[in-house]
């Protein structure tokens, strides 16, 4: 049900601009909406991060994934159990760029006879998540050609590498196919893996389907309709240079559908789980070094009025018995 409603929502986000542009609302979908989306994204994203960053981390609670640094002759794991900023930096690099934690993933197999519980390495989620995220990044970089004149050299390199197989005309980008494979895998897991289906909500299906919609409309524009790229760039440059105007040459409605879906993603982003992109950098179990036995970690709301049950009160309670047992006491009975 949640998946179906998400699908309907995405469909609506394609149909509405498609029809709207036909009715002469090109400027609304091509200019107004993108500005709204960019503003909401930037303000919303910043506010979320600031809100998180402002809330205190009272305790130093890293999840340690390797040997601590203790005795000099014991080899420690500086990246899985960092004790300083350098180690944390490496831990985060591995986490963000290589999905280190997900790479550990295992799956449980239970055999009734024996009984035997086995664990096998399960890298598919790691692999497809990695494919999806890197393709997404690459595609974003490629799109910079629409927003920059002249097109920077790195963007050319990204395009060259992405189309190195030289299939078809226009040349096919591998990332287009791979991102679709990644997204469809993530979606299929949600639908066919009982455990994942059980925990999935509308906000899990919606962004996946939204991204599928973006990719499909993008592919449609590039390979099927072969839209007027010069006109699209004119529209895009108008937006980024703050001189927005509708290009003279007509743009295919699929471009507006694509653009509207992207705007929807931008608007949705700050209010959703997609904020994991920013949140991971603030997660206390990952970004705190394992150092609170070595040096002081300060809790801003530590309450100094909390005192232990005092020794004096303890001794008052048990003094006679302590003396009888031959235990030293501070005050004689």
């Amino acid at each position: 049900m949640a998946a179906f409603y998400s699908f309907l929502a995405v469909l609506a986000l394609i149909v509405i601009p498609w029809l709207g542009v036909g009715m002469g609302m090109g400027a609304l979908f091509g200019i107004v909406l993108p500005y709204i989306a960019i503003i909401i994204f930037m303000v919303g994203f910043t506010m979320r991060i600031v809100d998180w960053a402002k809330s205190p981390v009272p305790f130093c609670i890293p999840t340690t994934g390797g040997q601590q640094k203790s005795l000099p002759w014991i080899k420690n794991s500086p990246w899985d159990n960092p004790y300083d900023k350098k180690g944390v930096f490496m831990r985060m690099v591995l986490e963000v760029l290589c999905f280190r934690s997900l790479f550990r993933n295992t799956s449980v197999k239970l055999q009734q006879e024996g009984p035997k519980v086995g664990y096998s390495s399960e890298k598919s989620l790691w692999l497809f998540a990695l494919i999806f995220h890197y393709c997404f990044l690459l595609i974003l970089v490629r799109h910079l050609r629409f927003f920059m004149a002249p097109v920077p050299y790195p963007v050319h390199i990204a395009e060259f590498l992405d189309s190195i197989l030289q299939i078809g005309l226009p040349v096919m980008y591998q990332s287009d196919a791979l991102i679709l494979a990644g997204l469809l895998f993530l979606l299929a897991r949600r639908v066919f893996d009982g455990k994942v289906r059980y925990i999935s909500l509308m906000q899990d299906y919606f962004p996946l389907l939204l991204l599928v919609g973006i990719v499909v409309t993008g592919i449609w524009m590039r390979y099927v309709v072969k839209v007027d790229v010069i006109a699209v760039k004119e529209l895009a440059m108008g937006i980024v240079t703050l001189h927005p105007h509708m290009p003279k040459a007509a743009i295919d409605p699929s471009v507006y559908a694509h653009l509207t879906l992207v705007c929807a993603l931008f608007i949705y982003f700050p209010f959703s789980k997609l904020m994991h992109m920013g949140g991971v950098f603030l997660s206390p179990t990952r970004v705190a070094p394992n150092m609170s036995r070595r040096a002081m970690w300060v809790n801003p709301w530590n309450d100094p009025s909390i005192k232990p049950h005092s020794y004096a009160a303890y001794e008052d309670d048990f003094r006679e018995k302590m003396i009888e047992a031959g235990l030293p006491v501070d005050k004689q009975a």
Partner: protein
Amino acid sequence: MAKYPPPEELIKINYTTPVKSWMDTKTAFKPGNFSYPGKPDILKYLGMPNPREWTPTDDDWKLPPDWQRIVMEKFRSLLKKYRSFKIFMDICVRCGACADKCHFFIGGGDPKNMPVLRAELLRSIYRGEFSAAAKVLGKLAGARKLEEDVIKEWFLYFYQCTECRRCSLFCPYGIDTAEITMMARELLHEVGCNINWILEPAANCNRTGNHLGIQPHAYKDMMDFLCDDIEEITGKRIRPNVNKKGCEILFITPSGDIFADPGIYTYMGYLILFEHLGLDVTWSTYASEGGNFGLFTSDKMMKKLNAKMYAEAERLGAKWILGGECGHMWRVINQYMSTMNGPADFLETPVSPITGTKFDAAAGTKMLHIAEFTADLIKHGKLNLDPSRNDNFKTTFHDSCNPARGMGLFEEPRYVLKNVCRYFYEMPENTIREQTFCCGGGAGLNNEEFTETRLRGGLPRGNAVKYVRDRHGVNNLACVCAIDRATLPPLCDYWAPGVGVSGLHELVGNAIILDGEKKRTTDLRQNPLPGMEDEEE
């Protein structure tokens, strides 16, 4: 005795999830899946809200009249106090990587024991109260209203989490269910829903200095009794210092070690080690508890109970503190102690008086783990050891959750173990070190009435033990945790019969040759040493 099903029956676990949404599944309490509630007089003693007689199987939980407001107010204040809570509520993508990492899910198959869903129990309320969009979309967006059933569900599932943090290791964002469980338990305290097995030890600890409520004279008696045993075995009388001022070191270990088999053998091991070194060390009856059930209660309680360690070290004028084998004790010391009750400037960075090693890892808290201390001694050749005395044991090692994932203490105990035992075998790699499985009794769940669920949760650990038992003939599971020593023996009897449980320093105590000791014929358990089966006294 067996009120719970035999292994053949318990193993019939079904991992398939129901068609019906989890929000429509009613919470079912049955004997063996919950712990008994906190007794009213204990709640009163601790000054906690809503003390009353009640049972989870009752329909009416006698919540205070405005309980919804109370819970939501606390929810808001916790979100303000902890970035972890806020972030963990916000960024989960429900990828499901954590789903089959929880021992309670693996051994029970209840989908609400998937860490992600355990957290959703809270998140659904968070969304329903704090997100306008989710409020409108309701169930589709995973939002729901705070009703009495939600409190019941929280009570069941947040007291079916041992805060072992295994899921957090696999989470791509480090979402830590232990943290979420702690928050949920704080919410439940506000309306008086908590368990006695945690609160009574916390209350005891406050007054008597230890969870078990052992009073000072009784503590001394038990200590003397263990010294008698040591004398019988080694021929040497040990006279440990208790509450003595002016010693260099204060030693603190969980009270479970003085109280029950097999912890007492570890306790004897400590006594033998200190005697062997001639260490200037004192024990304390006021700070006679290393563990801290406050960790399973609230940050305030944790701080209050922990504060005794520094208070006692200061009163006695010790230079630094040595800590015994305990799991959650070391989570508290490593990640909370200095923050809550430090800086302990009246203490010095621990220096081994025997080897001269300065332990910089403990420069902040001034508290050293005994495995670190002993490993350093062995490395410097300061212990006179006869590992053949442990030849009756074929040992494997259980990494306790907290020293593993809340500290990273892996090599020190292994180094000690390999030097005091000649037969050591590791369990499969997905079940040890940072991936270690819980004993099923952490976070205050090692009580009798919870045994069935504990045995279920113990399946992954028990099965790994069985693997090395069958493959290498392992008959001993060594560990560095007092809760392990209490919960693993029945667990092994159930899933891997024939395997016993020992602390690390029990094996050290067996191997140490004291100056002038008599020829030992038995180990600390008074079982004959290898080749001594026919010796008679």
